[in-house]
């Protein structure tokens, strides 16, 4: 057993996306829902799939596969929507992210989270807090505030305005 040594333990939820495994802190997860019919909203960036009715409120749903440039595969019975509670610009932002399936809830110590080697990973290192190795698997710990930032949306509309003026 590893000695506690003042290192913090984090609880993480891991899920599958394509061939990769990602993890996010449990305290940011509000709920895990079965795949719903998603109402699409016109003229939104590609990775925003649309909205669903979540406990009587409107929840935007992000297609994480597109965000991570993974091949689009059809939904299966295991496909889920993970409802996340993020802080964006100091305000609480609740949204859903599509995942192929959930795997596990587990705990890691801070010291087990390794830094992301710059060149060997094809995803932007800025999206990840680090990598955890459990058995044979490499699990990528997501910095969800960075991943789901709203900056993409603004770019699209600025381009449009430039076209008209």
């Amino acid at each position: 057993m590893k000695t506690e040594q003042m290192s913090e333990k984090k609880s993480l939820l891991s899920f599958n996306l394509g061939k990769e495994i990602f993890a996010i802190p449990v305290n940011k997860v509000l709920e895990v829902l079965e795949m719903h019919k998603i109402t699409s909203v016109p003229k939104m960036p590609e990775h925003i799939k649309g909205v669903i009715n979540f406990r009587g409120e409107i929840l935007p749903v992000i297609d994480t596969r597109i965000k991570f440039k993974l091949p689009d595969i059809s939904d299966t019975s295991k496909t889920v929507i993970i409802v996340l509670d993020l802080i964006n610009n100091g305000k609480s932002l609740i949204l859903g992210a599509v995942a192929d399936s959930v795997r596990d809830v587990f705990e890691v110590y801070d010291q087990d989270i390794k830094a992301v080697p710059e060149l060997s990973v094809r995803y932007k290192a800025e999206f990840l807090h680090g990598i955890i190795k459990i058995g044979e698997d490499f699990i990528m710990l997501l910095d969800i505030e960075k991943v789901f930032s709203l900056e993409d949306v603004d770019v699209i509309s600025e381009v449009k305005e430039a076209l008209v003026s």
Partner: protein
Amino acid sequence: METFQQKFIQDASELLNKLESDILILESGQDNESIDRVFRTLHTLKGASKMFGFECIGKISHNLESAFDIVRQNPIHLDKGLLNLTLHSIDHIRKVMMDSECKNEKIVKHSQDLIKQIEDLVLTFQSTPEILNSVYSEDIISGVCTWFIAIRPSSDFVKRGVHLQSIISELKELGNYKCFLHPLSGGKEGISEAWDVYLATDAEKFKIEDVFMFIQDEVELKLLSKNNLLIDAEFLKSIEIFSNEAEDKNVQKFPDTSLAEIIFKEEKSDKILENERIATLSIKVSASKIDHLMNLVSEFVTTEAELSIAADELRNSKIKVISEKFERLSRQFRDNALSIRLVPIDTIMVQLRRLVRDVSEVCHKEVEFIATGTETEFDKTIIDQLSEPLIHILRNAIDHGIELPDEREKKGKNRIGQITLKAYNAGSHAIIEIIDDGSGINIEKVREKAKLKGLIKTESDFSDKDILNLIFTHGFSTVDKISEVSGRGVGMDVVYQSIHNLRGELNVDTQRNMGTKLLIKLPLTLSIIDTSLVKVNETFLLIPISFIESCHEISHEELIGRSNQNVVIEGELIPYIYLRKELHIIAEPLSKEKLVVVLINNMRFAIVVDSIVGEYQAVLKPIHEIFKKQEIVSGFSILGDGSVALVIDLSKLIRHLMTNRILNQNK
């Protein structure tokens, strides 16, 4: 829990608004009642600020009060200098209240300067030779008068630590008095006694009111006579009898004639005390409580929709009947709750008047500002967000619309320009019109500017009406010089946006040298709207009913047949928006499609959908940040079956149409 300071700031703000309003009235003409009101407001402000530790506000009000005291007796001193100084003080006091710790040195210094300035002014008043001193107002009493004071204690007197006896004995300092205690039947809960006091004094009314400052809601004051009645034996006998017979506040009359007549009726409000009375007819409710109520109403309406659907599915006639009753009640409940949030536009009028005055001065224009229908009510949120666009419209009207007095004379117009604000209700909307009799918008100039900016290539494509609407585009301004006041080309665009954020419409109409009229149409509520539910493929959409003019059916071929995305309806060429395309739906269109024709901003266009499902009372769900910038949807609503419907934003659609036209012709 509000601290005393916060309460003071709230009350003081109201006092300042009142003061500002009266000063503006005095600017257009002196009248003694206004002077008197100003004096009393300053007096109240002084007292309150001293009590809550706002020393400098107290001093400023004290000096102004002295100035107006002199004015009361000698209105000749009421000149532009004093009025300006007073307005300036009002602005300054507002700043002081924001800096309650007195940390801002500039503000503190300015307060000192202001106090001295007013002091000096008062000195000059006092040193000018007095012209005849005469009594101008009923409230200026000279000589001993008799007053009747009715005290009706409320049940929490004891709780508040009010010691009635000691308050009444303070009256000793003002003069002679006689006090009666008699039982009350049918009074306010738990109250069983009332006090009647007759006071003979030569003190002014406000000094008497001061004594009862802490219980002013429970006290009524009436002037009985300009003579001292307490020395009259007959009077003394009468009031003895009166108090023995007195019951509550019913009609009473003195048996004798030359003496006073006292009439108290529950309904009749005493003119002197009108203000205090009116205060108790309405209650202040915190905005958050109303928001909470509105949330509950919204959920109620949504649940009622679910019930309706379930009732249909069950095919149980009994339940259906109840469900229909429920729907009617739900509508009434909704309307009632929404009306609580309604506030008359009068509340922002002082601000607007002040603005017109200030801007006219800066621009050296003479402007008369007339407002009618200010009792028209709008949703509180709407009013809060209306002041900015209105301010901008008025600024524009004065700066660019109304001509300089000499110019106007040359044109044969009255030197004084007129700006009228009309507010009224029209069906499910509330309308504000702003009309000026200035030079009108130069449509040719706008056309020129638009060509310069590359917005239009072929003149013929754009009618005068279209050109006029171009002033609402970003960055547009035909003004050559940026004046102090406006002209940066930011204004009208922002105004348009603000009005559309409130889900309203903005129409403009103008005539060269005659003037311009801006018409703002606003919904009565922001959160629940009556809509028409339509379907495009699998997606449900909602269109606000108030804009819908008509619905038609058309075959798909006929629609596509035309090249310009226009369709002929009842002889008119109307552009259309093909929702299937906008929603990127790949599935095959139906052979027969529906057209919903809408009218907004005086422009007509059609929306093509698969089918029209029915009417729906949509509760709008707040829209996420990320959806704010897109072009078609302004909100979402949850339907009775739990699915999400998109609410179409017509004003965005129309802009989208205009943008497309511009882009298309540039190809």
